[in-house]
């Protein structure tokens, strides 16, 4: 390693790319944590994706900056067969991999790289399937890709065909996710020959906008613009991640000019940031939902009228004020308003304790005493679950329902909350993976998710048929229509109390230009400039 560093420094100096030079455009991003590694397919955390998938790699298709629209990436175009089972991708020609101190590519991107990137995840006997100790392909697994992909065919150097077992409309969006990043097979082969496979997860080589230079553990990650990037060289010359775990310290660094962009500010600091003339505060509604899931298999929550009555007793405005401190909007659907197919027709829940009380009585529920589970952690969709539970507790007291608030350590909470015989109602939430409604409705409310991610344990035949059918169609407007119908069923049956969608903030120096916030929550620096 040491020799390599030395030659790198010499190389940089020779090329005149000193980090201190006046002409170079450097952007420092104060990130919230250390990446676990640099092979995004091995991980599920956003912090890791920012440092690997988004900076270093490309995918066949990409999310357009600032949206969840899927646009051509390494594939220039694609065809989907009539039956929705075959996806044929036509690769861009002349795509260059990064030339770094540890790897000099001799060829451009071909179908071999694409096939390698997926087969290592798909085939259990692939030489790279277990290339790192304890490594597993969690996202690939959790998006059910092994059950979905029948085979990946190399048609020619620049054409790859994915054959699916069942039609799956969200497939394209899945392929824009970080686990679908395309790695260099040539680099992998070189590492295999040197018997150093694990380096693939430490020193990445991709085709993306920035090339990896060095990672000083828990401190700094350095990248350089990829000169030969297929979409043109980036306006920035150097990108630096300064890992700063404490939000107050990130703000101080931003104010002192030690970094130009910082992630996840403290809600309490937002006003200070707004008043600072040297800082910009960008904000965007997050692709998330915070909700309270009843256990719909346990009495009395198995009756929709009981759930509807309880929903009517929740004062959402009080929650928005106290828990979200104004940085949120009341949720009426299980999907956020920025997502396509969001149903505008849905009526917001009425807040009417008197009527709620009458409805409960009509349903024959008297002296109800229930548990509400409050998460022990702060999440983007719920900054303070305990406080939220307390507000709901006092709301329910007004209609004569006694609430006992329970909580567990986070890992324990996640695990116990999946149990089918769990009691009462549970505060939970979700942040979208790929911008597809299926990623909310099927994962969180589909019959397959009962005993798992469907924490309302709710299996409604009508709803399930709609979302299953939508999955098989490739026409977006037809799918949107089915999802709207599904949202109507959801609203009628009320397996959850939908609480809020939160707003995500991003403070940055006024010198930073063209930053776009990503609805999926990642931090991308392609296209960003600094003055």
């Amino acid at each position: 390693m040491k020799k390599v560093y030395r030659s790198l420094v010499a190389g940089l100096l020779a090329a005149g790319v000193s980090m201190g030079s006046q002409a170079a455009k450097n952007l420092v991003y104060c990130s919230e944590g250390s990446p676990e590694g640099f092979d995004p397919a091995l991980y599920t955390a956003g912090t890791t994706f920012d440092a690997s998938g988004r900076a270093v790699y490309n995918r066949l298709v990409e999310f357009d900056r600032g949206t969840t629209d899927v646009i051509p990436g390494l594939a220039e175009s694609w065809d989907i067969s009539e039956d929705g089972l075959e996806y044929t991708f036509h690769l861009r020609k002349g795509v260059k991999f990064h030339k770094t101190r540890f790897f000099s590519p001799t060829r451009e991107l071909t179908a071999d790289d694409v096939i390698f990137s997926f087969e290592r995840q798909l085939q259990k006997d692939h030489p790279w399937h277990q290339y790192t100790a304890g490594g597993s392909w969690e996202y690939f697994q959790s998006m059910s890709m092994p059950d979905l992909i029948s085979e990946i065919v190399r048609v020619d150097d620049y054409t790859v065909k994915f054959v699916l077992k069942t039609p799956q409309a969200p497939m394209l969006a899945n392929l824009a996710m970080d686990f679908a990043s395309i790695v260099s097979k040539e680099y992998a082969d070189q590492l295999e020959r040197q018997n150093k496979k694990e380096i693939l997860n430490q020193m990445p080589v991709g085709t993306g906008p920035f090339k990896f230079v060095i990672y000083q553990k828990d401190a700094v990650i350095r990248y350089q613009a990829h000169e030969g990037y297929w979409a043109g060289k980036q306006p920035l010359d150097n990108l630096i991640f300064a890992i700063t775990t404490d939000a107050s310290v990130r703000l101080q660094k931003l104010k002192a000019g030690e970094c130009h962009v910082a992630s996840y500010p403290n809600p309490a600091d937002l006003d200070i940031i707004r008043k600072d003339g040297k800082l910009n505060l960008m904000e965007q509604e997050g692709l998330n939902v915070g909700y309270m899931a009843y256990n719909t298999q346990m009495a009395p929550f198995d009756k929709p009228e009981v759930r509807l009555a309880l929903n009517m007793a929740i004062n959402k405005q009080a929650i928005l004020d106290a828990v979200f401190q104004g940085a949120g909007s009341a949720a009426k659907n299980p999907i956020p308003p920025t997502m396509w197919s969001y149903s505008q027709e849905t009526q917001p829940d009425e807040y009417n304790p008197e009527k709620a009380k009458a409805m409960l009585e009509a349903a024959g529920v008297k002296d109800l005493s229930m548990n509400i589970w409050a998460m022990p952690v702060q999440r983007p969709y719920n900054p303070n679950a305990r406080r939220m539970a307390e507000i709901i507790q006092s709301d329910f007291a007004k209609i004569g329902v006694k609430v006992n608030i329970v909580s567990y350590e986070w890992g324990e909470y996640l695990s116990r909350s999946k149990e089918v015989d769990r009691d009462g109602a549970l505060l939970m939430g979700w942040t979208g993976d790929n911008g597809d409604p299926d990623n909310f409705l099927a994962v969180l409310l589909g019959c397959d998710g009962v005993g798992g991610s469907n924490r309302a344990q709710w299996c409604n035949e009508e709803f399930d048929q709609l979302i299953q059918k939508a999955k098989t169609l490739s026409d977006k407007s037809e799918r949107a229509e089915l999802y709207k119908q599904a949202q109507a069923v959801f609203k009628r049956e009320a397996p959850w109390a939908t609480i809020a969608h939160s707003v995500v903030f991003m403070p940055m120096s006024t010198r930073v230009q063209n930053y776009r916030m990503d609805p999926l929550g990642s931090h991308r620096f392609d296209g960003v400039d600094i003055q």
Partner: protein
Amino acid sequence: MLRFLLGRLAMLVPTFLGVTLVAFSFIRLLPGDPIELLAGERGINPERKAQLMAEMGFDQPLWKQYLDYLGNILQGDLGTSFASKQPVVDEFFALFPATVELSLCAIFLAVVIGIPLGVIAATKRGTFIDQSIMGTALVGYSMPIFWWGLLLIIFFSGTLGWTPVSGRISLLYFFEPVTGFMLIDSLLSGEEGAFASAIQHLILPSIVLATIPLAVIARQTRSAMLEVMGEDYVRTARAKGLSPFRVIGVHALRNAMIPVITTIGLQIGVMLAGAILTETIFSWPGIGKWLIDSITRRDYFVVQGALLLIAAIIMIVNLIVDVLYGLINPRIRG
């Protein structure tokens, strides 16, 4: 002396075994398992979870896991991190120099300020000076480190702009880590201003980390000095007409140092605990921050390994202190 040393070394074996047991059970006693945490809101299906547990050896009975763990330690293998997939030992020694550098600076500050303050307080016993020094020491001893660190950052870096906010060196400098000690590496790099930048970055975290040990050392020095100053030999020295400086600086202080050295040795352990908070607030890439992140992730092997290595280091430091103690005070060797 050799017997004394061997005796001390033999005592390390049961202590070390005890530490392995504590390290092994501690992380397993915490609720929540790493696989559930990794899967998050989505959850993981039971078969897949069982498969992952088996891959990591967690399906074995606990006693077997413990024996395997002991066996691996004897071979120098502390396991692999779940998160980074890298050997725990490699990660530890990559981060350890940063912690050592910070701790040494802090202990240096604590000693060069704490001992003179204690001596002054002892010689001015009962005066306003004594009371102010001891009062300040009490405040220092009770200081909540996290709050104190943030306060210093906001005042010195934010308001006055005198010191950098966090990190080990300005991001403008970019050179190869040779020793892992930034003060040395910045000198070796030959880059102009790098060493000064490294010093500037050390100031605030060293002050924060030194605060509690400094207070303890000052108080300990004061009481040890007071005890010694009442001894016959000090009175004799005074009676011989030696200057007050020689009486206090040579005769009294040398003997008062014995309990103070023990205190300094014990403070090394306290300091590693303080380093966890200090490193977190100053984004200092050392083992404290690494350990905290790993506990949150339930990264079993990292937590076990890190606790073991830290304990081993504290034991070695204590052994050195014991030996020094023996050198200073021959009566103890007996």
